[in-house]
């Protein structure tokens, strides 16, 4: 069974600029939390977790959605054949096991016996075939990229999927929320009816739902994981303001929040009534250089910028020790990360000046750095970049614009360089590489227009090479080329940060930033 074997445990950066943190932690005078170790105490049943989130759930149609507000409600209701854990390692889901033929073309999944949908009808291979075929038919935003020639129910508990050509990331894509399984023919309802009150195999069932407000779930009494979920109900409460999230949690009005600003982690951690959970994510914060820009088309200029940036300094100053410094495009939570390989260009002002001297613009120039407004972390990053580049004679004007305009601008390549983040949907490196280094893909190397035929060739090999040392070499080579060509500069890997009342235990945070609630329980 080809399973991803890897993943160095994440290095959690401990020491941070204490002074900065202390300055912010003014009100945090309480003794540090001493939470009971959930592993040593027995889970208790009952209770409700109320999770504050900044955006409401607007649709539950798993095949047609992509954004986190919907995806992380959908994944409570529907489950795919394969799951993954908080390290990004693929684990059994609705399929207990799977086999891949040696040519990488035939995938055979054995379903977990006795799984029931929330309406108590049994899950069969036919439901899997219907679900995946519907997903392929709607051509949704989180698709299966493999060219699939057939999906068959071999018997009630076996599904066979045949590909037209090998595609190694297939298993990790099957684990995405958009490949969740629902009853064949929508259980006899119309699509519209079905997705208003959907039926799945997941741990929770929709109770009440206001698309512009809160959504509440009750536990799925027929859930196949024995005894789970422990909680009776789960509520996603719409609180569209980060400060309010924090304050309502501290005041005990809600007992979990979906996001915590990096600057607030220290203060929250010092609150004995609150537990902060950090998990390495699939997100990469980056500085993107538009290689169609007059100056940035020169690789010497790009290398000069990479040498001029103190990534450790930026990470420490803006994320308060919650993020890991990035040395490569692929984060350690994804297979074949080169984060420890030392490919990234070092912080070295002399090297930066030398590189700029070699370029067509030895005397520097003036460019505009575009960021989305309303994100204080990005604003700080931009200021540090501005100062750092001033050191080598590049004048940076920071252009802070609202998110909708920001998106319109960069989709039109209307920017010099920008700070934004890239994100993978699965633990396979192909996702990030395809999105950020494929000049023919719709994102055209994340709107940098970066084109390198060698990288394109390697990327194509990576998709068809079976997991193993050969595949690892391909991705390490790609990351080395990217580090030297500098179409973008990975700065840090942010953590998925969640906070709960210290009475909530067993919370599992996944690297896609979703929370798994079937293991969570509340100390009564």
């Amino acid at each position, binding site marked *: 069974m080809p399973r991803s074997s890897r993943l160095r445990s994440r290095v959690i950066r401990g020491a941070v600029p204490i002074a900065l943190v202390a300055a912010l932690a003014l009100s945090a005078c309480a003794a540090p939390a001493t939470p009971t170790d959930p592993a040593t105490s027995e889970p208790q049943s009952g209770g409700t977790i109320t999770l504050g989130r900044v955006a409401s759930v607007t649709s539950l149609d798993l095949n047609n959605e992509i954004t986190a507000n919907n995806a992380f409600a959908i994944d409570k209701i529907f489950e795919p054949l394969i799951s993954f854990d908080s390290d990004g390692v693929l684990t059994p889901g609705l399929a207990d096991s799977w086999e891949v033929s040696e040519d990488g073309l035939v995938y055979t999944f054995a379903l977990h016996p006795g799984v029931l949908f929330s309406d108590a009808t049994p899950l069969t291979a036919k439901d899997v075939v219907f679900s995946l075929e519907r997903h392929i038919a709607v*051509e949704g*935003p989180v698709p299966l990229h493999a060219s699939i020639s057939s999906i068959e129910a071999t018997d009630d508990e076996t599904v066979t999927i045949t590909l037209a050509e090998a595609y190694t990331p297939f298993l990790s894509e099957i684990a995405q929320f958009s490949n969740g399984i629902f009853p064949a023919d929508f259980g006899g309802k119309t699509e519209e009816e079905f997705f208003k009150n959907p039926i799945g195999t997941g741990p929770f069932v929709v109770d009440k739902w206001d*698309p*512009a*407000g809160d959504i509440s779930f009750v536990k799925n009494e027929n859930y196949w994981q024995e005894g789970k979920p422990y909680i009776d109900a789960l509520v996603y409460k719409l609180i569209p303001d980060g*400060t309010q999230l924090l304050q*309502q949690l501290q005041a005990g009005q809600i007992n979990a929040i979906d996001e915590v600003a990096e600057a607030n982690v220290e203060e929250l951690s010092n609150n004995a009534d609150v537990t902060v959970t950090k998990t390495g994510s699939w997100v990469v914060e980056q500085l993107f250089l538009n290689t169609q820009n007059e100056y940035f088309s020169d690789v010497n200029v790009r290398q000069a910028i990479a040498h001029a940036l103190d990534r450790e300094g930026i990470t420490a100053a803006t994320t308060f020790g919650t993020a890991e410094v990035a040395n490569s495009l692929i984060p350690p939570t994804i297979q074949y990360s080169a984060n420890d390989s030392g490919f990234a260009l070092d912080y070295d002002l002399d090297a930066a000046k030398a590189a700029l001297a070699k370029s067509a613009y030895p005397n520097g120039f003036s460019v505009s750095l575009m960021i989305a407004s309303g994100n204080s972390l990005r604003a700080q990053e931009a200021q540090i970049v501005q100062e750092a580049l001033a050191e080598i004679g590049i004048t940076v004007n920071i252009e802070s614009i*609202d998110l909708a*305009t920001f998106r319109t601008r960069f989709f039109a390549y209307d920017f010099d360089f920008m700070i934004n983040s890239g994100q993978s949907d699965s633990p396979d490196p192909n996702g990030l590489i395809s999105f950020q280094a494929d000049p023919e893909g719709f*994102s055209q190397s994340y709107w940098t227009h970066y084109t390198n035929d060698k990288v394109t060739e390697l990327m194509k090999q990576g998709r068809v090479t079976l997991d193993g040392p050969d595949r690892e070499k391909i991705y390490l080579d790609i990351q080395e080329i990217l580090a030297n060509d500098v179409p973008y500069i990975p700065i840090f890997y942010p953590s998925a940060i969640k906070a709960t009342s210290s009475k909530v235990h067993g919370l599992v945070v996944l690297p896609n930033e979703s929370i798994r609630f079937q293991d969570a329980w509340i100390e009564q």
Partner: protein
Amino acid sequence: MRPPLRWLRRTLFAVVPVVIGVVVAVFFLLRLVPGDPARMILGERATPESVAALREQLGLNKPLLQQLVDFAGTVFLHGDTGNSLIYNVSTRELIVQRAPISLALVGLAVLFSLLIAVTLAVLAARHKDGIIDHVVRVIPTIGQGMPTFWIGLLLIILFAVTLKWFPVGGIGTGPLEPLRSLVLPALAVSLGLIPPLVRSLRSELLEVFSSDFVTTLRAAGIPERRVVFGHILRNASLPTLTLLSVSVSYLIGGTLVVEQVFGINGLGSLLFGAISNRDFPVVQGVALYCALMVVLVSLVLDGLVWLLDPRTRSAS
């Protein structure tokens, strides 16, 4: 024609163009600003194909004038501005669902403003040029200088986080909980409104205090309390009422901001989210109903002045 009808007709002639103007301006302004609702719905990693399909589905590909005609049709035929692009629910439904809490907030803010402003103004006027007068004239001005959201945050830290008298935000459940949740936000909005009310009422009171009819009343031995509250205040309140009616737009605007600070899911949060996401029908809907509300409240207050003050009646 009888005066009330004339007043009504004149007002209508003023109101209708204002409301139509607001709605048309919002329609075009929204579309002039860059930003694509389909992109906001699907996020940054969606393919151009899915974005194009969604734009088609949402009717964003139609010519602008066609969109305006469709929009005007929906407004006049259904009293609605169409389905929200983000939530796929009728805008009117969203507004009806959220309006009560915002209206309650505005109402409470007006109540607080009047209670506090009248008390302070009477105190200041009675002690003209004394310490109380100076304090009343200076302190509220500081409040006026602070932005509403900042006042809101300070109130949360003091009364909700530290003293725990009120919830930090949201609208609780239970019979009295929503009211309790609205106290701090209403106070935050009213603090910006109180200073001009106090100033206007104070100077007006001083003027009336020294007018002949007051001297006559006092000479006739009418108790001071009745003189102040029964006669002076009634006469002095008219310009303040007019000022309040002018401030209604400020009040509604302030409420929209404060809702965001206090995590109240009213019209303000709805509008804020809709603007960020370029949810055109919802922004247009909230603008339409807010314009109507501003106009309506001004009308009611004008009517009140008309009832209280016989002079306005004879003038028209």
